[in-house]
């Protein structure tokens, strides 16, 4: 029994290690090599070149402003929303659930596209409408700017920040605030001296994760930053490997190294912070429900604000894409626009061989990738949760490592590897890359499912007279099933929309949806882009609905 477990642990360490450590290793080696065809010829010239680039300083400055402001925006908004939801009598609290589920439905790339369609300076819908209404000569807004990038990325990171802060706020012992009131401090002082400091670890964790995610983000920098010539690290890397005729994977690896180091460091900080916030849990209250702050006259305006925000997060992007997919060119909604609507873009996309190939590839990657990913996750989660050895600890660290990998950087690492193998430019390269990079998203729901299966549940079934097989069927599998389903759906929906890794690894013949959408945007084919984007959203949505249905069926059984 123990021997089998040890063997399982070590073979998993080998597999996961190969998936996560190997690309990093290749990235390091690549950064010291002459070029893809001259792997292993040691040189430091790539570092010298990369870090003395006259543009580099500006890129770093842009990246810092972009990343910090976007995270700040998302954290402050999340804090505000979480407070409204858990502490006040704001109506329709269901709205807050929508805000936290959105990212499952709308891919970041399309979210960025929809804002570009609304607010780009030449023919953004909102800009056109404002120009017409007020007779302006110039478009009032320009999304293609650092400010625009910060706004869109901030909104994109909002749901994650909310999911970190809201539970902390909800489990907050209200007596901590009440005792401050009784001690003589007013509402404001209590907020500043007690509420926010107690929530500090959660707030900082949300902020740090926001920094990591926006540093790795490629959708917003490419869709909104590049047209406005605002370069950040992600797009800087992309230009080195994908544009112009002199692609330089060595230089990209050299720059990628610092992004990787920064990212891994921040994730270490993030994990320390989440551990800290658990330490802050004091004697838990079993008595009173939290007192609700009556908003009074501010109730409706605040509700309106939240409604507007959730509209901007959910309804607007989909509506803009859907609308754009039907009209022949960018125009403000009007009777004429509606009379010109047609399925032209849709039929064009569905007859476009490359788009169809991309669709086929993405579906294949989603179904096969998620299935393989979940199977691997089940074993890894089992070892992490149930085998408590030092090797299991190593496996845990290894499997969460790729959580901190920026897709584009790790893509460069994979590139250095695949180029040496026959896997280069095949769909299998993408498959391996996807599973390696998104493994933590499969492991997390699985391990929380395993945690729920307290060994007493298994044992009591055995004591009740059920054999191991019956116990497996009646107790363990039903308890595990929600985890398996949600892990599969999560991975599949991420694979359908995958962009950052794909732009590095995808080659002619292995196009995927997100890459094809990016191509459409580079060519300014907004109608086709929107039609294909709607297909992508449709697939994501169907997956999420499927997950809910399957999940409910298991609950009922």
């Amino acid at each position, binding site marked *: 029994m123990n021997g089998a477990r040890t063997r399982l642990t070590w073979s998993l360490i080998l597999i996961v290690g190969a998936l996560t450590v190997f690309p990093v290793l290749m990235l390091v080696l690549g950064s010291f090599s002459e070029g893809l065809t001259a792997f292993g010829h040691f040189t430091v010239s790539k570092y010298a070149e990369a870090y003395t680039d006259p543009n580099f300083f500006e890129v770093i400055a842009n990246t810092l402003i972009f990343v910090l402001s976007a995270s700040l925006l998302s954290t402050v908004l999340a804090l505000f929303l979480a407070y409204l939801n858990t502490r006040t009598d704001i109506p329709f609290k269901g709205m807050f659930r929508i805000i936290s589920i959105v990212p499952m439905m709308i891919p970041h790339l399309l979210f960025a596209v929809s804002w570009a369609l609304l607010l780009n300076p030449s023919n953004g819908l909102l800009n056109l409408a404002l120009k017409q209404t007020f007779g302006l000569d110039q478009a009032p807004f320009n999304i293609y700017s650092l400010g625009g990038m910060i706004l869109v990325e901030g909104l994109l990171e909002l749901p994650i920040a909310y999911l970190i802060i809201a539970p902390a706020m909800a489990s907050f*012992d209200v*007596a*901590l605030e*009440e*005792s*401050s*009131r*009784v*001690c*003589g*401090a*007013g509402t404001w*002082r209590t907020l500043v*001296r*007690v509420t926010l*400091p*107690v929530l*500090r670890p959660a707030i900082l964790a949300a902020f740090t994760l926001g920094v990591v995610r926006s540093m790795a983000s490629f959708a917003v920098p490419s869709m909104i930053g590049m047209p406005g010539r605002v370069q950040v690290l992600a797009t800087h890397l992309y230009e080195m490997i994908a544009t112009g005729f002199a692609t330089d994977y060595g230089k990209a690896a050299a720059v990628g190294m610092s992004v990787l180091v920064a990212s891994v460091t921040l994730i270490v900080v993030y994990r320390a912070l989440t551990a800290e916030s658990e*330490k*802050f*849990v*004091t*004697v*838990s*209250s079993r*008595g*009173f429900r939290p*007192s609700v702050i009556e908003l009074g006259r501010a109730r409706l305006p605040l509700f309106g604000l939240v409604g507007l925000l959730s509209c901007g997060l959910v309804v607007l992007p989909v509506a803009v894409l859907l609308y754009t997919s039907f009209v022949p060119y960018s125009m403000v909604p009007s009777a004429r626009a509606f009379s010109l609507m047609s399925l032209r873009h849709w039929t064009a996309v569905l007859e476009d061989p490359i788009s169809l190939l991309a669709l086929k590839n993405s579906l294949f990657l989603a179904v096969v990738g998620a299935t393989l990913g979940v199977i691997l996750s089940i074993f890894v989660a089992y070892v992490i949760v149930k085998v408590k050895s030092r090797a299991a600890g190593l496996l845990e660290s290894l499997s969460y490592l790729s959580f901190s990998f920026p897709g584009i950087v790790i893509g460069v690492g994979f590139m250095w590897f695949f180029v040496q193998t026959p896997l280069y430019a095949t769909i299998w390269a993408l498959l391996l890359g996807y599973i390696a990079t998104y493994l933590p998203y499969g492991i997390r729901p699985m391990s929380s499912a395993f945690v729920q299966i307290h060994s007493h549940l298994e044992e009591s079934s055995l004591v009740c007279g059920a054999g191991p097989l019956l116990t497996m069927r009646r107790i363990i599998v039903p308890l595990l099933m929600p985890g398996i389903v949600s892990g599969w759906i999560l991975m599949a929906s991420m694979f359908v929309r995958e962009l950052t890794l794909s732009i590095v690894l995808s080659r002619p013949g292995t196009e995927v949806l997100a890459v094809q959408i990016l191509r459409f945007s580079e060519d300014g084919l907004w109608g086709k882009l929107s039609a294909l984007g709607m297909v992508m959203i449709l697939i994501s949505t169907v997956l999420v609905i499927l997950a809910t249905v399957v999940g409910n069926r298991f609950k009922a059984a």
Partner: protein
Amino acid sequence: MEIRISGVSKYYYAEGKTIKALDDVNLTIPANRIFTLLGPSGSGKTTLLRCIVGLETPDTGEISIGDELVWSKDKNISVPPERRGLGMVFQTYAIWPHMNVFDNVAYPLQVRGVAKGEVAQRVAETLRFVQLEGFERRPATKLSGGQQQRVALARALVAAPKVILFDEPLSNLDAKLREETRKELRAFLGKLNITAVYVTHDRVEALALSDSIAVMRSGRIVETGTPQKIYFDADHRFVADFIGRANLIKATVCAESGGHSIVDCGLGRIACQQRAIAVGAEATLCIRPEFIRIVKGGAATGDNVVNGTIESLVFVGDAYEAEIRVGAELLLARIDAEAHLDEGDAVHFTLDPAHCLLVDI
């Protein structure tokens, strides 16, 4: 400082039903005494405490602390908790986890704008008082339950409040520590000469700590009195039953004589403590197990003498708990651990009228 509560009600609305958490409560809490609100869960005791502190807003009535009216529905007065100048110890202690012991205790002084030097001095004094000297720099969450409790007490006391309130402060401690802390608390409060309002559902705690007790049920105060009065002399069957173990026997008053009320019940004719209950009316006879003194041997006669047999015996360490069968009644009694009795033995006992309590039905 005296607390006067008049006509206070508090309603909750849940699933279309109105729940009366407090139902027209009238109560005067005397100054500089330890006053306990005792009752089962859901009786409204914590709600009443929170109304006094200002964390809960009543729907009707008035509350005044000392000379200050802090809440009045009719006069539209509502003083927020931070301006009531009270101290409170919460059930969870509510020790702020991001502050050390010193900062926790200094907080009430800091928010009142007390000068730094004086803050340090008064915090030191208060920590000495609760025997936590030298703990100033400890992170508050690193303390044991009992120590956290004393930090909470220090924080409640440091600003010299007019009134200190306790919301089940011992319920998170284990049994042994609870008893020690209870004694400590009694000692601390005894030295202070302060009005203390204490909420608990634990009758032993209430009896051991309080100068007076108000027993609550369903949002109402059922009875108020000293611990002795509540235990020996309760007027209400609910109170008599709640405050300690009791044999409750249906009885009918049949006469009054010699300063006793005489009742007929399943034990025969029993002389009880005198009560103003009309002859012929129904009542409940309440006898606590410790006042049933068992003697071996049956067929005894005399006033207030009852014969029975031992139906069961359970050894509980310091005594036996016995069930005595008397006709249709089954009485619980405590028997000395060294009394050599067996199940089935015939026994008799004599009841002291002073310990035969008549309460309403």
